[in-house]
């Protein structure tokens, strides 16, 4: 055993020596050298290869050109680090000038309530950000005194959007002779054709967000905007045994029974779901636009496309994460300028052409055909007021409640009625907590 350890270590040492040699010239990307008296400190947690990462890198360049003498000190952060430490960092003198932060009541809403974020209402009006963002995108940018989204002051500016759609394997559809479904009946007929041919049609993951979003989608097909406002913004009471959730849970359970969704998917994570679709193991995947750029890059073996959920006018979706300016930021004016640059047409177009979903792009400037499809579908959804947010938003810790509930539906260990009772409990508890 000791010998094995030594050989492995030798191999590892050799490999790391290679790496060392290859990386000899790496410089300091933080930009420690100060060419001017001022520095804009910027944090975000998008990968450098993602659409946002590319667009924002360009925005930093433009900012430095238009602000001679100002250095941008960009630090790439981990998602978890920001989630765990934001409250503490923003309450100290180490707060950055502008940073990306998660939208929602439990995140940006909470910080705004604690007085840690700068009110951006005046800047939004002055610089016209409020005109660029459609009403459903504004929902996640504004928070009231209780930290609940949808109304009140502006505390964040979203730079991109996201929505849940149906990804499909064109080759697999052709093989079964199925056309792109435009109605819900055609969609279920397509699922049935696959199931009869012995293929499980829908790739999903019950261990994380994907499966609960399918159940929410199904519920949305019986819902209207008033129901969504009731559920998400506590405007009116939501009946978990009403037609919407009953249909959602019942249909989801039926789909598992009919073999549209695999019984094994309860333990599957989102990443594995994506990998299985990329590997061509499932013809359909119902998930968010955050996969788009990766699919563009990595699906080589078959032709793929996407269409809007045919079951109704609404789908889970919202603005992306927000730019926020901490209350303790030292260069707020520079932060506003930077946000303004990221809302520019050329940065937004770059975001769109890189596989992201811009909020204020020029539709004509999106040249890549796949990206065009993404943006056009989003515009259609947005124009029919179809962004219905995500099912786990309304209450803290609700994500885990939904994961557990949907897993029980997949396993068949509980009936849809029992599951609905189970997910109603924490929701109602939260309503009582916030005094509704």
């Amino acid at each position: 055993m000791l010998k094995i350890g030594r050989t492995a270590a030798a191999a590892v040492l050799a490999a790391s020596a290679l790496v060392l040699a290859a990386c000899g010239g790496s410089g300091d990307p933080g930009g420690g050298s100060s060419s001017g008296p001022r520095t804009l400190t910027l944090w975000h947690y998008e990968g450098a290869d993602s659409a946002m990462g590319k667009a924002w890198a360009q925005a930093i360049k433009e900012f430095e050109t238009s602000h001679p003498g100002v250095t941008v000190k960009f630090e790439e952060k981990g998602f978890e680090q920001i989630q765990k430490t934001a409250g503490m960092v923003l309450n100290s003198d180490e707060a950055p000038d502008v940073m990306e932060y998660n939208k929602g009541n439990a995140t940006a809403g909470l910080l705004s309530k604690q007085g840690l974020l700068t009110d951006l209402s005046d800047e939004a009006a002055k610089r016209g950000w409020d005109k660029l963002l459609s009403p459903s995108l504004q929902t996640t940018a504004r928070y009231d005194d209780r930290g609940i989204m949808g109304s009140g002051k502006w505390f964040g500016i979203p730079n991109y959007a996201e929505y849940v759609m149906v990804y499909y394997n064109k080759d697999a559809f052709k093989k079964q002779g199925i056309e792109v479904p435009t109605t819900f009946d055609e969609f279920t007929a397509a699922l049935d054709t696959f199931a009869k041919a012995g293929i499980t049609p829908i790739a999903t993951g019950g261990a994380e967000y994907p499966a609960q979003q399918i159940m929410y989608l199904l519920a949305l097909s019986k819902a209207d905007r008033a129901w969504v406002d009731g559920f998400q913004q506590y405007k009116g009471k939501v009946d978990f045994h009403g037609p919407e959730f009953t249909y959602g849970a019942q249909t989801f359970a039926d789909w598992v029974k009919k073999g549209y969704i695999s019984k094994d998917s309860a333990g599957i994570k989102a990443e594995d779901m994506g990998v299985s679709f990329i590997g061509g193991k499932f013809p359909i995947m119902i998930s968010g636009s955050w996969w788009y750029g990766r699919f563009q890059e990595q699906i080589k073996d078959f032709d793929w496309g996407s269409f809007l959920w045919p079951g109704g006018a609404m789908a889970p979706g919202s603005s992306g994460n927000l730019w926020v300016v901490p209350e303790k930021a030292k260069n707020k004016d520079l932060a506003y300028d930077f946000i303004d640059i990221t809302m520019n047409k050329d940065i937004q177009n770059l975001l769109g052409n890189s596989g992201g979903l811009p909020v204020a792009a020029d539709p004509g400037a999106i040249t890549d055909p796949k990206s065009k499809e993404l943006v056009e579908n989003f515009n259609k959804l947005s124009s029919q007021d179809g962004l219905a947010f995500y099912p786990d938003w309304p209450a803290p810790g609700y994500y885990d409640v939904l994961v557990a509930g949907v897993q029980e539906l997949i396993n068949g260990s509980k009936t849809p009625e029992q599951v609905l009772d189970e997910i109603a409990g924490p929701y109602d508890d939260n309503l009582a907590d916030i005094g509704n």
Partner: protein
Amino acid sequence: MSAERPVRAPGRWAVLAALAVLAVVMSSPFLIVTLNAFKSPAEYSSGGPLSLPKGLYLDGIIDFWNRVDFGEKLWNSLLISGAVAIGAVVLSVLNAYALGIGRVRGRLWILVLFLVANTLPQESLVYPLYYLSKEVGLYDSKLAVILIFTVIQAAFGTYLLSSVLGQFPREILEAASIDGAGKWRALSRIVVPISRPTLSVLLIFFFIWTWNEFFLPLIFLISNDNQTVPVALGVLQGEKMMDATMSSASALLGIVPAVAFFLIFQRTLTRGVTVGAIK
């Protein structure tokens, strides 16, 4: 010598087989990480985590190195872990000398206190430490982490060393004091040299434990240029996306220093453990 070798009983073969299985199980995560570290993202997506890479794909490791400026992170980790290991051993020796040999009044209760402090979860320490470090202006500095971990590790070290030194042969100390050695001289010329194997083991453990710490460095090292290796690895975990191949590459880079350190000092470690066993 081979002629004298006893025939292996079947029981020993069973033990050997069990150990081999255990070795495979223990090293399999490491192997899978290594496998995926040298795979391109496309290969990972089409073949899954267990497929063999077609060629040696080094971009994941190189990109990650440049992305987080890994050399700087290595230096930070080395500095923090090294300072903590040395500081905590010195502090432990001083404490244990007083408690184990000096026989301070109420030493049992002091030791119990150290033990309790040792079992406190770090999560419960976060807020007090956060406010304290902000008060003294050490928030977001390596010194804060060094101080915190020196104390945490020394708590364990004191507990362990006190019981070791409690068994220290009295005659040697008495002989030294007859020869005119003071307390300092007894510590530096007799106690420390004799317990050196134990101290080296402590030093190595403190180094590796501090190296692997994630939670408190995550909270206290805000700026990227202060971060340690485990915190830097966290950069790759996105909100909805994870880059499996680059994560593997980073994990490989992250464990290599600890493994290397272990291999270098492995001999000291076994020696220290056996010394303790014989006594």
